[in-house]
């Protein structure tokens, strides 16, 4: 299996905020060694667990974000432990961590020290909540607080202005910052091919989320508009939306009926379908054949959405999606994530990678990730490691340590 990052060595200081960076690099073929505290990465303790039995080696969240990595257990708060990490980083291309510089300086793991020890070649990326400077640098945060502060929550929720805004599930701030952190690392790698010199990447999760809200910032900057949340659809700069995009179908499932433009071709097909079901109502009026009138009514009225509701009350969700997509209308069923396992389309594309994961009774079907590449792979390369599974092999292979030295470190409590 080949990958874009073959031959790269990454040392990752375990943290839930940065593990997606390591995953992306590992999926692309890099060797990623995660340095965990003796109790294991915080990512091992959040759950869900296999059969709901708490076990640091059986956390499914950890499995997903750490498949294909190696695990080495080191107590970096001990001088010997910190020294070991420094020596490991000397062998690496990339060091990923989630610490403020002040915390790393006493450990000699700050960028300035490590860059000197690697002749300037190191790329060090720090994914922190608020970055390395600024008045909020030391504030406490988690993934959901970033959904609030960064803006996604402010745009998402329900049309009722008294109901709480909502942050979507799935640790999205860490996914976004992980993606942008990896982007910066790979860009630094490209530059290093020419200069031979690495650099430091200061990646703030708050900064990353704050550029991830589509229209909210331009609406304020250019027009002084604050967006109003709308149930199941985009927040709007012109107050609550008139119509609804998510509509319940005959089988009880919801269908998203988004369309940015109902072209004459799309409209002809929609109208034919509505008439076929006897629910066209006033939409048979020739005025709706006029593009501008139709677009205005779609945006400002409710009669098109009401006709969709009458149609979908008669048609099951998937049948509706397939018929609409058959003529180019972008409808889709609102599915739960796991319902995607049922669709041949994703299996035909090899989206699920079966991995023999110790602790699971059968091979586990991991989502592959976003890319299918001609001639290379970008997917989980193996199981998630057990805590400290590779401590001995890594110290032996990368640092040339013998059994006696490793035992000494164990006895001192450094590993």
């Amino acid at each position: 299996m080949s990958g874009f990052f073959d031959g790269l060595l990454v040392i990752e200081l375990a943290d839930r905020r940065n593990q997606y960076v390591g995953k992306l690099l590992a999926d692309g073929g890099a060797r990623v060694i995660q340095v965990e505290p003796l109790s294991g990465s915080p990512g091992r303790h959040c759950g869900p667990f296999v059969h709901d039995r708490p076990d640091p080696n059986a956390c499914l969240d950890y499995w997903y974000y750490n498949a294909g990595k190696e695990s080495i257990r080191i107590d970096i708060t001990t001088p010997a432990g910190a020294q070991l990490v420094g020596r490991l980083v000397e062998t690496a291309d990339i060091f990923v961590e989630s610490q403020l510089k002040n915390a790393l300086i006493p450990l000699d793991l700050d960028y300035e020290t490590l860059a000197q020890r690697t002749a300037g070649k190191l790329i060090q990326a720090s994914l922190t909540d608020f970055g390395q400077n600024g008045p909020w640098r030391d504030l406490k945060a988690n993934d959901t607080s970033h959904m609030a502060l960064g803006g996604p929550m402010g745009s998402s929720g329900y049309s009722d202005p008294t109901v709480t805004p909502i942050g979507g599930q799935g640790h999205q701030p860490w996914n976004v910052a992980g993606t942008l952190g990896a982007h910066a690392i790979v860009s630094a790698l490209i530059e290093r091919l020419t200069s031979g010199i690495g650099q430091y990447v200061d990646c703030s999760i708050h900064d990353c989320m704050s550029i991830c809200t589509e229209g909210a910032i331009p609406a304020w900057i250019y027009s002084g508009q604050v967006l109003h949340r709308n149930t199941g659809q985009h927040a709007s700069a012109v107050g609550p939306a008139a119509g609804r995009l998510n509509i319940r179908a005959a089988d009880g499932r919801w269908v998203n009926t988004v369309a940015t433009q109902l072209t004459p071709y799309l409209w002809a097909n929609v109208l034919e379908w509505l008439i076929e079901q006897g629910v066209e109502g006033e939409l048979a009026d020739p005025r709706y054949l006029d593009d501008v009138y139709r677009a205005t009514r779609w945006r400002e009225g409710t009669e098109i959405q009401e006709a969709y509701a009458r149609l979908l009350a008669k048609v099951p969700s998937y049948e509706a999606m397939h018929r609409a997509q058959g003529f180019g209308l972008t409808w889709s069923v609102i599915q739960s994530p796991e319902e995607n396992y049922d669709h041949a389309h994703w299996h035909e594309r090899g989206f699920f990678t079966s991995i023999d994961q110790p602790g699971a009774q059968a091979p586990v079907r991991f989502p592959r990730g976003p890319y299918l590449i001609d001639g290379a792979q970008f997917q989980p390369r193996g199981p998630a490691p057990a805590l400290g599974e590779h401590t001995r092999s890594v110290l032996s292979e990368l640092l040339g340590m013998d059994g006696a030295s490793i035992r000494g470190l164990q006895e001192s409590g450094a590993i």
Partner: protein
Amino acid sequence: MEAGTLPTYGSGPLSGVRVVDFTWWVVGPWAPRLLADLGAEVIKVERVDQFDGTRGNSMLGRRARSGRPVIRESPNQSGGFNNLNANKLGATLNMRHPKGLELAERLIAKSDCVVENFSAGVMESWGLGWERMREINPRLIYVSLSGWGHSGAWSGYRSYGPTAAAISGLTYASGLPGAESAGWGFSYMDVQGGFLGSLALVSALYHAKRTGEGSFVDYSIIEGAMSMLGPYFLDFDVNGRKTRRPDFPPGNRSIFPPLAPHNTYRCTGQDAVGQDRWCFIACETEEQWGALCHLMGRPELARDQRFSSNAARVEHQDELDAIIQAWTEPLPRYDVMSRCQSAGIISGVVQNGEDRVEYDPQLRERGVYPVIDHPELGPYGYEAYAPKLSRTPAKARRGAPLYKEHNMYVYGELLGLSADEVTQLQNDGIV
């Protein structure tokens, strides 16, 4: 025809990289924009007869705050377009004309990357599929961002951001338990999907620079969306647990790990459109919970059996949330946040666009919305490349290109046509 204002290159980590950008709307343009921020020369190629839809997207603002006159007919005054396409150059091309296709091929031969976000099959219909592009330029990176991918039974299907969110599970995973899905109030996968597309571009570029090998990346945005939800897939595959269950989605509460308090709480006042103000608060440790009790002036709660451990608080979180909201409701939102943060408690105001631009001192100090001047719009902030590279930082060089602004540079300077030839191409409707 003017050559247009050219950006200054040279300092970014991707200086010297050229990208042909056929993207439009939102998800596509983000991918190459991140490369432009880092110094790549990104040439946005629009159709001769129809500009990128975002240029006409009035929702994103034409009520200019700069005081400059607004030209309703201008395709150059969309704030959304300016945000998404800053630092790029702009050209136009008729890909359906043989001469236009020939120019595209000549441009591709001189470039490192091609990126587009058409539905599967569109590039092939122009005669510019991957096989042809690889013939023209064996070192080429071609990243295609499509909703459903280029293969599989549903490869012909179409998608916008909300489509991808709905089918992937993202929409379902956002809402109050037992209520209709709230979903995402913006196209999350147009933005994060664009970031992932950009990561594909630089990753393939790194590979090409090391090996001399080009790559075709078939990037399905829906697969990207599903990969943002990995643990839910594994929970079903290993434990058989479905997310269609009474406690999911949990609103703003936390299920894995179970934590309480962990929610949004109403504060005093409303925003400019009449929506209540909110602040998120979470306690992940007993120390934080004790500090919150003290802060609320309710130290006895820490000893109350209903709230004496995290497990007990999770069990009684309806009562707990009511108590906390009774404390926050009369207080201004930033006051709640600063009191909590001073006591070491996780908290964050639910900020909207106004809050982040006007009142967030962190974003201001970090320069997240730097100002760029634009010839028609004037000086406006835009969303900058977020990570800070110490030696070769991203830079705001110029605003988004005017429609057709760099045709002379692209077809004249890069492809070697004379000014008369370019003018003739324009008169013929080819550029």
